[in-house]
Structure formats: C-alpha cells, structure tokens
C-alpha cells in the first residue's frame, strides 16, 4: 500500500517576518518543513516500519525551493517524492484539489498532513482532501497504528479526546505529541540524492486559487513594557502589580 505525506515549506517559527504589500516577504526568511508536517512524515515512516510492503511518497506543491525540503523528506526515509512546481500561491481548499488528484493517480490509501499550517494558520487541508476523495478523516491525532487495513488511534476533539477506528482509505492530520520526528543521518542524506524526485507542472491539474489575499500586515499591539526585576522586594513588586490590577485594569475588586 502507499502513503502520501504532504509537506509544506513555511517560515521558521522563530524567524522575523516582513510584510510586502499583499503577502509576507519570504526572500530573506529561513524556510523549513512545517513542524506539523514533520509529524506526518515520521508517522508514515513508522507505519511503514511496522507493516509490510508500504511505500511512502512525499508531496510538495510550491516554489522551486521546495525541492530542498523534499530531499530532506527523502533523507528521513520517504521512498520517493513529487514536486508540483509553481509560484502560484494556492489557498488550502484549492491545494486540496491537487493533493486529491495525486492521491487518486498514485492509488494511495492514506494521506497524512499537518493539522494546522504554520503560515496559513489553517486547519482545512486534510478535511478538504478527504471530501474531494469522499474518504473519512481523522484530525488532530495523538496516536495512530495500522492493523489489517484499519487505523486505530486517538485524536483531540472540542473538549477532550476520543479513541477511533477507521478503515482505509482515510485522511489523517498530525500534530505535536503524535511522535518524535527523527533526524536525517549523513549516509541517508547521500542516499536521498539518488531517490526519485518527480517534478510536475501545476497547469496539469487545472487548479486555481479560490481566495485572493489583498493585504497582509504585521500588526503587533503596542505594549507598555514596564518590566520590574523583583530582587529582594517581592512584597513591593506584588503590591504594585496588584495595584495595577485593581485600579487600572479593574479586574480585582
């Protein structure tokens, strides 16, 4: 069976951002694989290691620099990779059209992707892919095992969590806590160069953006930055802070 793991290149969470008109300027930003997707790659590898005859395919849709991230996925252990190369920025629901078509063409039985994308702050990709394929979905998984063609695990819901069982094919979204992603080793980095990385054009898929971003701003709230080093006077510092809570913020009676 085949597992498709979708990976996206996003700015490193700790890097600073600069807005340029309608988008974030990524030209001087460190780009990395979305950590949410790293859990998906790792889980695909673990399922392969625990099963028989499983092939792991990594998929990225985006600009040329994605190739580097896909090589990294191959170094981690993915068997091959597909890069749909484009400078067009797709929204999650539009992107799901490309992912679903590739899942169909490849005869994939499980699609994995991150539960919430670090750049879009979106949770839509997995569910939209599932709907296009008319497959069930499990989001926000924290445990996932594959046995006799069925997935069993746990996932988070509105006010807690629940266990689940579902037959393949399915779409599963991943998050922190599901596993501890591995690091690529030097020999695997070398091997990754020889693995298949197929490049395709977005035009093949007839998918266009459905949402237009007209403006992006970095807006941070003005903060007062009144920082006090407590030192030897916790009582004085506490009294001042409680005074602020009481008289200025009016949250203490």
């Amino acid at each position, binding site marked *: 069976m085949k597992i498709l793991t979708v990976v996206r290149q996003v700015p490193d*969470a700790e890097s600073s951002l600069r807005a340029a008109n309608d988008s974030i300027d990524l030209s001087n930003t460190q780009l990395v694989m979305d950590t949410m997707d790293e859990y998906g790659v790792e889980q695909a590898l673990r399922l392969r290691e625990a099963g028989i005859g499983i092939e792991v395919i990594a998929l990225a849709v985006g600009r040329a620099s994605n190739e580097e991230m896909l090589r990294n996925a191959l170094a981690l252990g993915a068997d091959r990779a597909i890069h749909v190369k484009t400078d067009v920025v797709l929204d999650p629901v539009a992107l799901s059209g490309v992912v679903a078509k590739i899942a169909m063409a490849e005869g994939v039985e499980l699609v994995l992707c991150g539960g919430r994308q670090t750049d879009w*702050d979106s949770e*839509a990709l997995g569910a939209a892919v599932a709907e296009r394929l008319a497959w069930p979905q499990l989001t926000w998984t924290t445990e996932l095992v594959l046995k006799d063609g069925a997935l069993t695990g746990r996932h988070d819901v509105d006010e807690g969590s629940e266990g689940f069982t579902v037959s393949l094919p399915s779409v599963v979204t991943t998050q922190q806590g599901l596993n501890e992603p591995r690091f690529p080793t030097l020999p695997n980095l070398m091997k990754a160069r020889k693995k298949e990385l197929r490049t395709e054009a977005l035009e093949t898929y007839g998918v266009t953006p*459905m949402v237009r971003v007209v403006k992006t701003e970095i807006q941070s709230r003005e903060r007062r930055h009144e920082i006090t080093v407590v030192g030897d006077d916790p009582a004085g510092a506490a009294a001042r802070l409680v005074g602020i*809570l009481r008289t200025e*913020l009016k949250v203490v009676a």
Partner: protein
Amino acid sequence: MILVVASYGKERLSKATYELVGAARQMGSEDAVGVLVLGSGVDAVAVEAAGIADQVLVVDDAALAKYNPEVWSEAVASVAAEGEAWIVLIAALRSGREYSPRVAVRLNAPLLEDVISLSRDGGNISAQRYSFLARATETLMVESPVVVATVKLGIFPVASSCETPGEQFEVEQSVAARRVRTFEERVDATSTVSLTEAEVVVAGGRGLGSAEGFERLLVPFAEALGAAVGATRAVVDAGWRPYTEQVGQTGKTVQPKVYIAVGISGATQHLSGMNKSKVVIAINKDADAPIFKIADYGLVGDVDRILPVLLEKIRE
C-alpha cells in the same frame, strides 16, 4: 439567506451561536438569517434560536446525537444548497474548523477560516483573519455565489433578540452512515471559568516546576482573581494539566482583557494563542524570556516567591 450553523451544549445555545448571528446581522444585509440546528432532541435549542433568528431550520434525528464531520458537512451543505444561502457561518471551534472545509468542497465554495471581520460589497465578500502564527493580519477577498466562513469566537457582538421569534421548520435530511467508530471519549475537566470567554486568564508554563507546583501556586491565584486557568503545550504534554486548558497553536486561542503568563518563556506557538490579549502580564525568572517582549507589565523573579505574595495582596 445567511445560514448560521448552531453550536450548543446541554440544551443551551453556545455564546458562539449568538456571535455568529451577530456577525450575520452586522453585514448589513436585508437577507434573512437562518439558524440550522442539527442534533437529536433539540427542541429547547431550536426555541432559543428562534429568539434571535428569522428562521430556524431543524434536523432532529437520533443519528445526529453525536457530532461527526462527514455527517455534519453533508447535512449543512445540503441545507445551504436548498436554502440558496450565499454565505454559511460556522463557529471556529475545532469541530467547525474540521467539517467546514468539507462543506466548502461540496458547495464548490471558497473557505474563509477563523475570520475576525466580514463584509459584503456587491458580489465581493472580504474578511480579515490572522495568519503566520497570529503574527500577521491578512485581508482576503472572494467572489463567489456561495462562501463558507468559520468565525473566530469572542470577536463579534452577540445578537440581540428579535421582536417576533423566527419561524421554525423541520427539515427532512437523510443522514450519512458513519465510517469512523469512536470510543473511550474523554471529556477533560475544565475550570469553572470558560477559558475562551474569561476576562482574565492565568496561564502557567514549565516554570511552575511540577503538577504539584501548578496546583499549589497558580490555581489559588487564578481562583482569587476569578480567572480561567491556561497552560502551555509543555505543561499539557507533561500531564500536569488537561488538554482543554492548553493555549497556543495546537490548543485554544484566547483574547482576554488581562492575560497573566506565569513561568512561561513564550515560544511563538504559545504566543499565537494569546498575543491578541488586551493586557499581558508576565512573571518569569529569565529576564530574556521572549514573553517579556509582548508584555505590558513584567516581574522578573522566582514564581515560588512572587505568587504567594501576590495572592496575599489580592486577598487583602
């Protein structure tokens, strides 16, 4: 029609539903606002919804006793199509955010996620939302006969009651078979004050040292303030606090009047869940902790020493 999907619990509409209707009303449209109630034994909820909506559409079926994304998306899309809704509004809860994309695909509609503003100008709908771990604000525009939007909680004004209650309609709807079997449901214990609706949130991080430290130092302090308790991912992963208290990228987003971060260093993923709070107060022993960069007031020092004194002063 503007179609609002009701969210509710314990036979009462959630505040989120009032906010969704509020969002629908402030778009300034002449169109009727219909509230869709999906569930089993939802009479009380439907009556309550009639108090704020022009129409209430009810699908009451034993098969809808429990939420499921496939079942919900199919029902919502079919009611939206039949009612010729031009926009479908869904609460941006974890559940709403996971089934709304399926509704969008079914209706071939663009999806606007977790929006903080919504307006309609002729055939265009524009919305604002946060992105890049809530560090950026983007303005989106879509042009489509039908649009699906999830609405961020705690942003829009709650709807006021109508002069005459909306009419109620029973909707016949075949319910899709469930393909996912669920078990061992765990509802995490929540503090008495709702995290997403609280005026004050006191959240703790690894700096509290242990589950015992969290319980002993932070919880009484939060109680004295009448505040909701929040926690970081690290604290939840360590099993000190339930997942429902988690604030950040993989937890809840809060924007209280006052957010007090105790022993929290301030990873970007955590900040994304609280950086819109009106006032941020940070207490941490590390003066270089990133949390101080977004703090209005900060105390640099040991939480073990500071919290008991703070508690004492509040009780005075």
